[in-house]
């Protein structure tokens, strides 16, 4: 199925993103966020171009990129399973969800499935602790999960992806 697809980035694309920001120096983090929004990750070329446009040394750019855990240097799955492992979710069995995903999709935290459909990403707290254990996928929050519900969610996403694949 799908291969890991690396994005093609041009200098002009990056220039365009940078132009949106008036105070460029303070906007490094925001610019990288925009880049990631566009490509799904921060491609190495993009990082270099942003540095060139803003006239910031490569080492510093790299320093910023690696400091923040939400920047990714590699492409990620279509569905990023953000499983909350915060306190409230931890005491209500978040570990079981993570274990189930590992078992079901054969991936470790931070990894993608081979077909690039899923990425497992444990996160600290999604702010809906009252519905622990929680997960968020593509911006949608799912509460009061169990290992079984997690599996049916995964199935649901797989179906969704399959439907998209079908020629219209």
């Amino acid at each position, binding site marked *: 199925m799908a291969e890991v697809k690396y994005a093609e980035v041009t200098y002009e694309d990056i220039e365009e993103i940078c132009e949106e920001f008036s105070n460029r*120096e*303070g*906007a*490094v*983090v*925001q610019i*990288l*966020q925009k880049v990631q929004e566009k490509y799904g990750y921060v491609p190495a070329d993009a990082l270099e171009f942003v540095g060139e446009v803003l006239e910031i040394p490569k080492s510093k750019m790299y*320093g*910023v990129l690696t*400091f*923040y*855990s*939400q*920047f990714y240097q590699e492409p990620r799955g279509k569905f990023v399973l953000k499983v909350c*492992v*915060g*306190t*409230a*979710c*931890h*005491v*209500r069995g978040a570990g079981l969800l993570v274990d189930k995903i590992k078992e079901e999709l054969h991936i470790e935290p931070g990894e993608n499935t081979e077909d690039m459909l899923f990425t497992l990403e444990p*996160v*600290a*707290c*999604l*702010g*809906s*602790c*009252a*519905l*622990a254990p*929680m997960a*968020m996928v593509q*911006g*949608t*929050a*799912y*509460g*009061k999960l169990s290992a079984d519900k997690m599996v049916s969610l995964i199935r649901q996403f797989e179906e969704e992806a399959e439907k998209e694949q079908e020629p219209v």
Partner: protein
Amino acid sequence: MLTEALEDTPVNSGMQTDLPVIYIGMATCGLASGARGLLDLIKKEVEKRQLNVQIVPTGCIGMCHNEPLVDVKMPGKFRVSYKNVKPMTLTQIFESHFGKNDFAKKYAICQIPVEGSDPYEGLALMSDLPFFKGQVKIVTRRCGMIDPLSIEDYIAMDGYKALKKALTTMTPEEVVEQVTKSGLRGRGGGGFPTGLKWSLTQKSPGPEKYVVCNADEGDPGAFMDRSVLEGDPHAVLEGMIIAAYAVGGARKGYIYCRAEYPLAIRHLKKAIDDAKSRNFLGDKILGTDLSFDIEIKEGAGAYVCGEETALLASIMGERGMPWPKPPFPAQKGVWGKPSVINNVETLGNIGHIILNGGDWYASYGSEKTKGTKTFALTGSIKNSGLIEVPAGTPLREIIYSIGGGMVEKKIPFKAAQLGGPSGGCIPVDGLDTPVDFENVVAAGAIMGSGGIVVMDEAACIVDTAKFFLKFTQDESCGECTPCRVGSKIMLDILTRITEGKGQEGDLDELVRLSMYVKSNSLCGLGGAAPNPVLSTIRYFREEYEAHIRDKRCPGTVCNDLIKYVVIEEDCTTCGLCEPVCPSGSVTWEKGEVAHIDLTTCIRCKACVDACKFRAII
């Protein structure tokens, strides 16, 4: 123009219509419980019945465990709240209100008074429910009551009145004086007096100043700020604008919000746009000399960025590393200029203080902690959600009266974790602790930003301490060795203990390392990282010792220490446990007591759950 902005409000908000109103909780908890699908059903039902009603999405009312929540307000009547609404329930609710002119008794939890309207008979008032009885809502007063996306709703509930009062009838000094009088202390966890912080920033020289709102809410298990941002975003803006005025005319403000709160960010953006269009933000606000703008900065996943100096570095596009204080942000903040940095809840209180006076706010709370505090009540508790109580409310009242006690009636309370990764555990003996800054510290935890995670006897204290230490260890920025390396060594020891490889002397070593990390770390992250360990050793030494000496986990959480056995006397030889075991570790023959082979058992607990007679422990 001033009056126009405030009083010429077009009647299109849920607050001011004569139509029936259907409210639906659409904050994160609501959405996670299926509110979106429910909203579609409501729309369909409205269409089907050809009703002329207003549908209003609202924020968090605090009863997150009861989501999805739907309220119905008929003209001339009080507003009725329904909990855990399902498609089936929905039809009956519609039938009751629009068919029979009544309410659906079976599903209603309470009614909320509406001015000039009549109550229903036989339904409790919201304020009489145990969950709300001990609560005093100031900063969360509007949450769940209004449409957070409607500036009209906000204005209808006294919104931007405080701004008008401050800008047109008070000097900046008088504003600071009221905030000082209120006794308000920073709600982000530090508890620094807000009035003092403002006055320091005001006195810092230079015309260029900044106001920063800390909306990073990094403590896992805490969502007070999220509820306010999602449910009442204008309150935070109003607090910031008043701060801008009070510190001597700041022109620019930043809200640093964590990326895990996409809904909060959306609501803030809309609120900023609407405030601009009515000139509560922008140039010459309400015709005065104050010009102030707000920009949102999204976090990128670093807990330490909640620390104020790291946050400032991050706003400036740097790695979010803390810097040594002094200089304090009040002297040198964003772009080296004096900056006042306050937490969401702190700022959310400002409007109410200005409007009602500092003395009014100070009339709530305890001697040294004035006003109210919000808490996110979670874990093994029945009513988990968001609450706001006067500071100094005893923990027992929070957990048992408001929280409704343990979620599993049979499993008793063990401890409450307060203050997240910087806090500690309070045991049964500490249940009478008044929850305010000073008393919670005396009990070995911190009030922190307001996360309360309740644990029952099925939880493991050592595992919890390990959990928090792992969190801080992961999030350490690495600048100072004691924090980075010390916490790693501590974590290794704790991990060893939970794996059944603990040794005599481990506890002494943990305490020794804790002291070292505490006193040699630059920022509060390292400085408080050992707290969860210290507080649990203080109160639950026996539980650590059970792990170390007896290789036993009393809460049956630590996998390596769990030994499932069949209790012969309780086993009815029914055989239910045998087929569920994924590793074939259960042997059972008809008429015989089951047996578990611990060498192959993977501790999945399936057999325990399968046994109806609780014969496997």
